[in-house]
């Protein structure tokens, strides 16, 4: 690229722009298209909706379903218990009301769901139903393709909203390979970019550094765009640490629930009961047993039958094929060796814990005309697949009722705002040598800082105020260095913007960790200055970027009824 040959500029106009064609994004598009055949819907997706985001490899079950004898209220109480009370009742209830309908819709799209002889779904535990989830994403993408009013823009990385005075009217991005920059004007925008991985040094920091649980390509773009535009965020300090199979970082639920394997330490003692059975409790058990010298920890599979071996091999091929390969390659199947487990690096993911946009009951963010659904949206943990779909549907319905009153933005305003961002892309696309640091060097530095000072794997998820202060100043230093990064091609440009997103999320995350002066979810985070749970923090920690600084504050818990923003 030279000064004489800037990127090609394209301006697009639509009614509803959906950023991120993952689980929630695709389903929001489908819901809106079914109800409003003349609405123009555009999905802007960084990869290809056929295999993008969390569902790319497949999933092993639908983890959120209201099974026979259970109610949405039971689900609410389960989530409240699991998250130690820091949830939004209104959001969890409205999402849970959609679980079964979205599961039935997936089945209509072709998802195979296991049924008993009476034609009823076979359940796994209290909230799960069994499926073949290998092709769940291609099925969703095929359904998107059935509606003529949905246009899909694959391979476009969105980096910024178009905003003015607290109102969003589109977004800006660029081709991940083609030198094209896009300015997209829309009456309503749904953000559905998922959560953020790769903030902390991962379990396998070397060659297999991307062998992580959460998709390494979900880099927190939606959070970062919202933060920079002044949207209110909630519960970033409620990080998610997953308990996973060692090395392959494959989910463990299929083993634990499927063959009833218990968690044991190196001495063979079952420890799970000691720490409680919540998600955080389980994660804490494994971390603490190891920390105190009783590791490694395992899921005790030795002695299962050969049929169980075979089922596990197949089930993992449908969602985490590395684990099946590992069993075969080692020459010992799970019946012959226990499965070693470990905690992952912390992720920010509103589909498992509560981090994300602060939304009203109808999934409106605090920025006008911007809506959020799925892992990017906060306050409603334990969404899983069906919850992300349900939130996509709720957001789509809200948009359909709001959009009549949203006028399109003026073209001159769109162009002026977009151009500012384009100039940044053009500045960064350069053949100049990347010295002395390239984007990978700064990413590694960020992960080291977060690991050591903001409660990563290295410290067994522990931190104190002094360490957080060091983390904060180091992230500030890296933000400055990242501003100067340039790269010779679009692929490097994607990496540069992903790094910028992660640094923004880290900055907010650190501020939230500082603000919650207690330890509520010991499996996810231990504040060593305040190692106990405190009644004073039965509230949300929220934040907002205002006039160049981050304001962090608390809000009282929202219980039932509808919650509306008051500006």
């Amino acid at each position, binding site marked *: 690229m030279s000064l004489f040959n800037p990127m090609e500029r394209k301006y697009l106009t639509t009614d509803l722009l959906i950023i991120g064609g993952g689980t929630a994004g695709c389903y929001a598009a489908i819901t809106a298209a079914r109800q409003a055949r003349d609405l123009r819907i555009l999905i802007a997706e960084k990869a290809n909706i056929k295999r993008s985001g969390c569902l790319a*490899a497949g999933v092993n079950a639908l983890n959120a379903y209201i099974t026979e004898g259970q109610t949405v209220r039971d689900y609410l109480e389960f989530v409240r218990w699991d998250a130690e009370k820091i949830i939004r009742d209104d959001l969890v209830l409205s999402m849970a009301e959609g679980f079964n309908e979205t599961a039935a819709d997936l089945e209509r799209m072709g998802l195979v769901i296991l049924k008993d002889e009476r034609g009823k779904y076979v359940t796994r535990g209290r909230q799960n139903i069994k499926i*073949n989830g290998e092709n769940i994403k291609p099925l969703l993408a095929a359904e998107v393709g059935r509606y003529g009013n949905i246009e899909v823009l694959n391979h476009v990385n969105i980096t910024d909203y178009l905003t003015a005075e607290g109102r969003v009217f589109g977004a800006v991005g660029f081709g991940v390979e083609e030198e094209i920059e896009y300015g997209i004007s829309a009456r309503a925008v749904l953000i559905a970019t998922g959560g953020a991985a790769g903030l902390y040094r991962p379990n396998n920091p070397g060659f297999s550094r991307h*062998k992580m649980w959460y998709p390494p*390509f979900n880099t927190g773009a939606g959070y970062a765009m919202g933060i920079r535009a002044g949207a209110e965020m909630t519960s970033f300090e409620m990080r998610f640490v997953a308990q996973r199979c060692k090395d392959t970082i494959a989910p463990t639920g299929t083993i634990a629930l499927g063959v009833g394997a218990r968690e044991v330490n190196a001495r063979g003692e079952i420890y799970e009961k000691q720490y409680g059975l919540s998600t955080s409790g389980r994660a804490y058990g494994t971390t603490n047993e190891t920390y105190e010298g009783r590791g490694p920890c395992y899921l005790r599979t030795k002695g299962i039958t050969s049929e169980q071996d075979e089922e596990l091999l197949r089930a993992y*091929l449908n969602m985490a094929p*590395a684990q099946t390969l590992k069993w*075969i390659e080692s020459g010992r199947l799970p019946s012959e060796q226990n499965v070693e487990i470990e905690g992952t690096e912390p992720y920010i993911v509103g589909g498992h814990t509560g981090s994300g946009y602060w939304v009203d009951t109808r999934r409106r963010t605090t920025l006008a005309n911007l809506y959020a659904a799925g892992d990017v949206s906060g306050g409603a943990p334990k969404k899983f697949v069906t919850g992300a779909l349900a939130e996509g549907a709720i957001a789509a319905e809200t948009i359909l009722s709001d959009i009549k009153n949203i006028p399109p933005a003026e073209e001159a305003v769109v162009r002026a705002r977009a151009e500012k961002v384009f100039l940044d892309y053009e500045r960064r696309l350069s053949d100049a040598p990347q010295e002395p640091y390239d984007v990978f060097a700064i990413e590694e530095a960020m992960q080291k800082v977060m690991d050591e000072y903001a409660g990563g794997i290295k410290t067994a998820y522990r931190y104190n105020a002094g360490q957080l202060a060091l983390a904060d100043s180091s992230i500030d230093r890296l933000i400055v260095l990242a501003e100067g990064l340039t790269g010779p091609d679009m*692929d490097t440009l994607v990496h540069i913007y992903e790094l910028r997103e992660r640094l923004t999320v880290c900055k907010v995350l650190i501020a939230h960790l500082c603000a919650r002066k207690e330890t509520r979810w010991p499996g996810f985070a231990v504040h060593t200055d305040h190692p106990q749970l405190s009644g004073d923090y039965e509230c949300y920690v929220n934040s907002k970027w205002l006039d160049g600084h981050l304001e962090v504050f608390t809000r009282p818990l929202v219980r039932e009824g509808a919650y509306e923003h008051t500006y």
Partner: protein
Amino acid sequence: MSIHIDRDKCIRCGACREICPGNLIGRTTDGTAYLRHPEECWGCASCLKECRHEAIFYFLGADIGGQGSRMQTNREGDLTHWIISSPGREPFTITVDRRESNKY
């Protein structure tokens, strides 16, 4: 964790490039697919399943216990055959039927 693309088997159809969730697969000047950054592979196996020419194999990095085995897939309608070849052993095949749910 990563994949390897066999230059000689690749027919340059671009299917793997199109669907990699991390946009990790590039194209050499002659159109052959190649993995840009092997360390960035998530190991989702999407490219493997998409390639109908068995040009891609999947392996575990040495840092996560790999022993040099290669995993490939071969599709026949709803059936996916996963073929694992380990040094010094007969290939091992597991067949998964898309129409059948996981039992666990």
